[in-house]
């Protein structure tokens, strides 16, 4: 038995349930996030600004420094959101936007210590602004829909989402959902 295998055996009992069933857990969490966005404003109207799918995409990108997986996850979340969008909006608008968000989040995570709360706050704020602006730009440029974009409101919502991201990411960290183990333990899982 090699040292690596021993290390894995020692490591596994400490992993959470989510760590072992990452794909299923991710799909479940994505569904919860989308349902939350779908239904939460009905329950609490003041939470219309909350972008749970976006925060999940950013988190996955930050914790998984693999741009391909991150952008594919972003595309999956975005397309799922698109399928619940109004029928006058074609499928793919959120897909493209969140693909880019996932890719950039994964790229940025290589450069920064993304476990730092301050950096997470700034990145979430930035990605929310980018997401809102790029989506608005696509609707305007590709679909020709003159949708208003309120900069002040977007900034405020960005700040709210960034603030909401911190406790959410702490919970997700506890779940070890992203499979973000230490560098030496990550390799045996095929990363």
């Amino acid at each position: 038995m090699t040292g690596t295998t021993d290390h894995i055996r020692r490591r596994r009992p400490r992993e959470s349930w989510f760590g072992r069933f990452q794909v299923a857990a991710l799909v479940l969490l994505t569904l919860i996030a989308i349902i939350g966005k779908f239904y939460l404003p009905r329950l609490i109207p003041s939470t219309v600004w909350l972008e749970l799918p976006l925060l999940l995409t950013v988190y996955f990108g930050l914790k998984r420094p693999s741009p391909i997986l991150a952008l594919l996850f972003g595309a999956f979340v975005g397309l799922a959101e698109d399928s619940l969008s109004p029928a006058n909006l074609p499928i793919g608008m959120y897909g493209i936007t969140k693909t880019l968000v996932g890719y950039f989040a994964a790229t940025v995570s290589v450069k920064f210590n993304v476990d730092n709360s301050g950096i997470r706050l700034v990145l979430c704020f930035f990605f929310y602004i980018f997401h809102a602006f790029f989506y608005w730009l696509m609707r305007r440029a590709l679909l020709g829909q003159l949708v208003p974009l309120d900069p002040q409101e977007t900034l405020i919502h960005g700040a709210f989402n960034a603030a909401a991201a911190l406790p959410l990411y702490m919970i997700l960290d506890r779940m070890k959902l992203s499979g973000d183990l230490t560098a030496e333990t990550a390799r045996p899982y095929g990363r």
Partner: protein
Amino acid sequence: MEALLSRYRNLTVLLVVVVGQLLYLAYQVKTARDERLIRVWAVSAVTPMAGVVEAIRHNTIGFLEDYFILLDVRDQNRKLKSDNDKLRMENVYFRNQLSTAEHARALTLFQAQSPSKTVAARVIGNSTVASAKAVFIDRGYTSGIEKGMAVVTPDGIVGKVVAVYPLVAQVLLVTDATFKVGVESQKGHVHGVLACGTGACTVEQIQEEEKVTPGEWFFTSGEDRIFPKGFPVGTVISVQPGQGMKDVKLNLSGGPGGVEEVLVVLQGVHQPIPIGPVVEDAAMKALPPPPGEPGNDSKQPKATQTEADKVVQKYQQIGKEQNHVYGGLASGLPNFNAKPGATPTTNPAGGTAPATATNPKTSEPKAAAPVPAAPKPVLPLGAPRPKPSEPAAPPPQ
């Protein structure tokens, strides 16, 4: 080439995914085709859960309100009673309106056309696009919902159905930036287009020379082929001159953003724009007492309601026909067996019954009949009674 792709693998995958989605998006826009299957899958996967959550929330809140917030129950009960009374008054008001000759024509027209059929639905979720104002309702094509149908509340318009699934439907709200509604003002019948793209709702396409005043109501004009004509839209908040067109801001009466229950118009019927004030105001006014009809005095007996009332009315009619005054002196006994309206016969006392007004031959005894005396004042016991001025019977000749 392979080395290049391998070196920029991440970027290559990104480009492939983005370009793939762009092409797919362009295909949808180009063919104007809705990818129904994907949406049906997604909606069918999400809405049952949302429906369950909504049911749990509704029942939980109802339970909490029932058992822990009983403090407000009395006030709510009082308010509900008040609202109920108000609605009943409105109901009476509308019944009276319909019964008048003025509305008989409208009723005939209403019956001639197919009446507006609606189906009630509950909002179960929002759209995932924050900037697009859309909601899901718990009625689908199994309930007869079709794409393009209008969605309203009794207070005003809400939106239109843009997608229909088996058990749910998606409604684009009038507050969406891409939604336009044809509207018409109440007083001047000024036509315009309602648009809520910039936050506040405005009525566009109104010329400067048109007259629109703040507080004026706007109704649907029916020109958009979505909403039937005559549904209330909202009141004018402000009117300001713009560049060639007036800048008219409107306050929506339906409150489409926060509605819980809506009505989907299955078959719409155009109605005329109301001329008078809005119904709620009219119902709250204290109406003057109804004018008395000629010959109608307060002493007229009321309509019969019970068997006792019918008997009383029958006896009164018998007494009237036989000139009998109940309680009068020397009035004799009336023939209670005689049918009302029939010629009086001999009364049981042996004498001829007093003549009726329809029998001129027996009109003479009518003069001898005692005149119904005015009600005598009630005197205390022991007080001196005045002597009768007229004898009860004619003096013997």
